[in-house]
């Protein structure tokens, strides 16, 4: 579905991402984790073309993304940043309808099909009661859901999420992640997200990629990746990892900074 072939990213003289490769299969949820400044957000931004990479390539459905036009990409891939701001008087419905933009040419108006998709996206994100309210008047979790609804209306095959939970309280964090999982399970949407919380990454993803100083430190299923050794090596923390046989998901309990 999406293949990253040894890309390197450099800001001025500093190498931020070094020879990084991975690939994501259709229908997978992949989390990218790593300490602050490790380059995980940069990696995601370079896939979504916000940050240029100096070498390597990214292939979407077997096509080099540099050879695709932006509209073509926008119909397949959608990136949601950690913080978004809508114009203060924009309603949820209007925001979500922007998701149809890449599918329209300038003279085309919204059709009934478009409206169906918009309403479906609003329903899917449980915002039906809020659709006439302005995005600015919503709480953090609700507004994040509104932006996800806009992404849904775009009907992408791949959704990129850059720390989608950073500015939310705990229950809203899980609400957003549960929504992501629902979308993945029901529609087979492929998701790549950058997360901070190790337990969330372990709980909600099929595979986890660990980034350390711009390089791929590890990659695998949560139970392969989430080990006390990895956490000590990458995060400099002592921890206990419990493995829940029924759920097949590790649970991480952080203890103290490693000495």
């Amino acid at each position: 579905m999406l293949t990253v072939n040894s890309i390197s990213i450099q800001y001025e003289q500093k190498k931020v991402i070094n020879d990084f490769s991975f690939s994501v299969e259709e229908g997978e949820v992949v989390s990218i984790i790593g300490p602050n400044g490790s380059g995980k957000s940069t990696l995601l931004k370079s896939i979504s073309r916000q940050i240029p990479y100096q070498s390597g390539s990214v292939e979407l459905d077997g096509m080099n993304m540099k050879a695709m036009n932006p509209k073509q990409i926008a119909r397949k891939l959608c990136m949601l940043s950690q913080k978004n701001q809508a114009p203060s008087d924009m309603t949820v419905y209007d925001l979500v309808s922007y998701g149809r933009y890449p599918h329209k040419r300038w003279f085309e108006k919204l059709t009934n099909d478009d409206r169906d998709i918009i309403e479906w996206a609003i329903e899917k994100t449980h915002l039906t009661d809020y659709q006439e309210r302005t995005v600015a008047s919503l709480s953090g979790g609700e507004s994040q859901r509104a932006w996800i609804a806009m992404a849904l209306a775009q009907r992408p095959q791949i959704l990129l999420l850059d720390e989608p939970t950073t500015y939310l309280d705990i229950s809203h964090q899980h609400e957003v992640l549960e929504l992501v999982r629902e979308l993945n399970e029901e529609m087979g949407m492929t998701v790549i997200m950058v997360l901070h919380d190790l337990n969330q990454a372990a709980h909600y993803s099929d595979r986890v990629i660990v980034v350390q100083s711009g390089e791929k430190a590890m990659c695998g299923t949560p139970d392969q990746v989430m080990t006390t050794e990895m956490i000590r090596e990458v995060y400099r923390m002592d921890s206990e990892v419990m493995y829940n046989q029924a759920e097949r998901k590790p649970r991480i309990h952080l203890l103290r900074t490693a000495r």
Partner: protein
Amino acid sequence: MTKSRSGLIVVSTFLLAIAAAVIAIGLGSIRISVPDIFETLFHTSAGNVNDTIIFNIRLPRVILALIIGANIAISGAILQAVMGNPLADPGLTGVTSGAAVFVLVIMLAKPEYTQFMPLAALIGGMLAATIVYALAWRRNGISPISIILAGVAVNALCGGVVGYLSIIYSDRLPSAVQWMNGSLAAKGTSVVTMILPYAIVGWILSFFAIRKANVIRMGDQVAANLGENVHRIRILLSILAVFLAAISVAAIGMIGFVGLIVPHMARFLVGSNYKYMMPMSMALGALVLLVADTGGRTLFSPLEIPAGILMAVIGGPYFLYLMRRSVF
């Protein structure tokens, strides 16, 4: 803000501007009643003194005020979307003064090339816009502070050049003073016919720009994510905004604040969707400048105050009011 209501407000403002234009034709040292104006305009009267007053003096001036007001307001509205910043306006960003410097060079140093004034204004405006982008642009956009500072720098630079020009060409200066203050006095039909084709092109392009403006106002990331080439849109829309401001400067000189205040008023009245905000800015800009110009020539009669000065006197405090309400 319901859509039908916004549409109604836009249409009413256009009608209001037309009504104001008719009244403005009648105002002046010789008053002409509205029925007389219609008789003259539609040639039902048997040629009298009103013909001369209306067709040679008042009508061109009124039309010019409408055109220029619309141009500058649209220019401000576009710049605000493109720079993602409510303070972007052709005056504050220095586009107007950049254009003015180039026009002034022709006006004072090479008066024989008057027909190139619009082109010179466009070049000057583009130069100023480029400097502002270069100075104020950071990786994640333009902050209100840096836009003001960049604008101050460009305006100061242009002020210096204007000062220099006015010293070395002091003998020719009186003809330029009215122009520098943004006056619509004694322009006549020739200026209207000069600017109208350019303005119509600009308005048509603005109509096509509505959709792009609506996307780019969401921010670079969102626009790029929706499949737009953000840099290309930004450059094209900036050129359009500079074009509209520059042709206005070439025609009547510097008029500040229309490009800042009118889009704010428009946004307040019909919301921030450019589908309504753009035509609203156009109608309201035309109306505001017409009122300013008509006020300037009638209120203190026989003294005539250039519209630019009146706009500055009204615009300054409004600007402070916006700051107080922390709109930006």
